[in-house]
């Protein structure tokens, strides 16, 4: 049997840099023969490789599964390519900006001839650092492109602030915990980041390590001040009539020290607070303080310390939202020695997110089967990708599976050996109920 040819799908909104990336891959000196299947609006001009125009013709399967749509044109193009005597080493499929990658991925699940000769290697989604937030807020297709991705390339990071890129990366991560996220400028991603990803490869599904977000902080900002005795923390009216804050000694005036201190003190924000009226003293210490910020147009709090030194102030909101400033005993404006913006808890309520389930013990095969098929019947259209490693009662080997919407593919993997039996599943989907999924899986535990 001849080797299968890897196929990489490039998605991303108009202007995100797909064509730039394509050209980069094609002109890189890699010695591979690459055929490009372009969307109807594509116009790349690289003539040593074969470029084929595709009309992105999608049809619905007759199998009663409403989400099972397939790219018939792709089946046909790939079927014709395989007839050539001089085969290609690799195929790249570029979709139009507005395309949902679902039908492309599903094509590789449903067509036997395509599966026999080709492997879907991965979905690479380019994300325009400047315009992505906008697209994600109002486009289902943009969401789907993020959700389907094995690699997310945040492109044009030189055009926006680092903080904006951080915020975007967090948003992408919360939607898709399985993708690798890379930051690039002119779509200048090294080939090995984009090709041979093995996103649909069951053997590689075994190294399932979703990158879930670190805990989010209950405060948005931290700053370091050199305090000698007293200083004034002055605020004006902002988005909230009150704000929680903590003052704490710190050993260095660096963002790293701030992050370390943040880890130590963040539980204080869930403890009962001491209410401070304007004009009150704000001492350092274990207690959470809530500053009352209503009824006037200026609020002063006295940061009062016994020992001079570096102190960190953590606030629930960003001080600039309250036009806040720091002043010394002489009334002169003080500069911060360091500051850091922490990730706010509620940035976006994206309907698309990743859910990971982990469960110790072996599962009952029949119960699991029934649960999964019921889940895919009812929620298939909302599940973009899923992967899992399952411990099934009576099976010596780990069972690995991966899927797209209602379609999935699974096989026994390596033996469990002495390892304790446990199952891990990751879903990337829309409006998924984590508690219900967890409960459903738990109900499959073998007696």
């Amino acid at each position, binding site marked *: 049997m001849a080797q299968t040819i890897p196929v990489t799908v490039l998605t991303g909104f108009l202007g995100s840099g797909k064509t730039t990336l394509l050209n980069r891959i094609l002109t890189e000196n890699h010695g591979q023969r690459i055929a490009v299947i372009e969307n109807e609006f594509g116009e790349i001009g690289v003539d040593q490789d074969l470029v084929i125009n595709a009309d992105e013709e999608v049809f*619905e399967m007759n199998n009663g599964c409403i989400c099972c749509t397939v790219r018939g044109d792709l*089946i046909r193009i790939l079927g014709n390519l395989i007839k050539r005597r*001089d085969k290609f080493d690799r195929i790249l499929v570029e979709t139009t900006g507005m395309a949902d990658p679902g039908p492309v991925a599903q094509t590789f699940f449903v*067509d036997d001839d395509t599966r026999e000769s080709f492997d879907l290697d991965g979905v690479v989604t380019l994300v325009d650092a400047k315009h992505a937030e906008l697209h994600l807020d109002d486009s289902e297709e943009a969401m789907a492109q993020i959700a389907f991705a094995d690699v997310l390339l945040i492109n044009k990071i030189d055009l926006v602030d680092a903080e904006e890129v951080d915020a975007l990366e967090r948003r992408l991560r919360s939607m898709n915990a399985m993708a690798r996220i890379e930051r690039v400028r002119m779509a200048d991603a090294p080939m090995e980041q984009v090709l041979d990803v093995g996103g649909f490869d069951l053997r590689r599904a075994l190294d399932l390590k979703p990158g879930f977000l670190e805990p989010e902080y209950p405060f948005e900002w931290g700053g370091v001040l050199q305090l000698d005795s007293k200083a004034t923390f002055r605020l004006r009216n902002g988005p909230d009539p009150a704000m929680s804050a903590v003052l704490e000694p710190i050993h260095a005036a660096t963002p790293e020290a701030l992050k370390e201190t943040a880890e130590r003190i963040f539980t204080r924000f869930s403890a009962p607070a001491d209410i401070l009226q304007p004009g009150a003293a704000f001492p350092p210490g274990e207690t959470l303080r809530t500053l009352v910020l209503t009824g006037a147009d200026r609020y002063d709090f006295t940061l009062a310390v016994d020992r001079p030194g570096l102190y960190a102030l953590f606030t629930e909101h960003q001080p600039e939202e309250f036009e806040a400033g720091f002043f010394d005993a002489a009334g002169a404006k003080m500069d911060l020695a360091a500051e850091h913006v922490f990730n706010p808890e509620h940035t976006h309520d994206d309907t698309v997110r990743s859910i990971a389930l982990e469960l110790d013990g072996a599962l009952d095969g029949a119960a699991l089967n029934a649960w999964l098929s019921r889940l895919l019947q009812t929620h298939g259209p909302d599940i973009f990708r899923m992967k899992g490693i399952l411990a099934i009662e009576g099976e010596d080997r780990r069972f690995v599976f991966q899927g797209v919407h209602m379609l999935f593919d699974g096989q026994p993997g390596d033996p469990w050996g002495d390892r304790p039996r446990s199952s891990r599943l990751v879903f990337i989907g829309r409006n998924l109920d984590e508690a219900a999924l967890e409960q459903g899986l738990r109900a499959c535990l073998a007696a």
Partner: protein
Amino acid sequence: MNGVRLDHWIVDAPLTGVCVERGGRYAAFAGGDGCVRIADLREREPSLSVRSLTRGAVLALAPDCRERGFLCGADDGAVYRVHAADGPQELARLARSWPDRLASHPCGLRAIPDGARVRLLDAGGHEVAELGGHPSTVAGLAFDGSGRRLAVSHYNGASLWRLNGRRGEPQRLHRRGSHLDLSWSRDERFVVTATQEKTLHAWDLVSGQDASLGPCINKVKSIGWSADGAWLLASGADTVSGWPFLDGRLPSPAPRMLGRYSEHLVARVCANPRLALAAAGYNDGGLELVSLTARPRRQSLAAPQGSPVADLAWSPDGNCLLGGDSDGRVFAYRFDSDMLARLASAD
């Protein structure tokens, strides 16, 4: 085996199509190396005359409307008429689609798909009509026996175009899904498509009824009709699948399995145009004849060579069987008509 002469060649490129021109004298083999190779079946030891058309693959091959000619579609978008005695003549060049199906009719018509349209050319190569409005790229193309209608398959069904008189809108045959290959029954009453979903779909143009046939184990790659028109034959299972259209009614979905089961699936089936028998080519390269009789008999022709039979064709007189596999082994069997007749009347 007595009563048969075999010639075979290695062409070092996957076979992409085979056919015999309307005069029955020349056979053509299309290859994944961009060449068409022509054999004169009247020669005692035929050799292959090579015509190079493209650097890529020849994607479609069909008999042209006139004798001694072939229609060829190349993967650079060009459609050629290749004549047994001349060089290739370009008939059309498609800007952004591949001519991977072609059809002609001896009345002097050629059909060339161009995306979601079909261009109709006359025998002189002039475009006489453009048939458009199909919901997707055209997949299957077939003229009916009289040349009065052209059937076109696409997403969600097929369209039947009337070619003489007032053309107007085509008759639409609707069924959800992707319809690939297409065939008319010999009496022109039924149109059958092979679908992406491993089934066939048959429309009865007289009663207006339609039926899904199958499913088969694999996607059906070739369909055809027995010489007497009574059987629809298809590949895609572990034996030749047949559906009887004996009394002019649509058959029930489950096929009759003709002949013995094999470990390997039938990749191609091709009905003999004169006798009650068909050639079947398997995924492992095995080749055999199956009689379409009450108790089907099989006559093995070639031992499996490992790679799937890529295409098969009979000459119009039914005495020559041409074919080849995806590794470039191509062959021509020339049978004594007595030998075939004995097999076709085996019981």
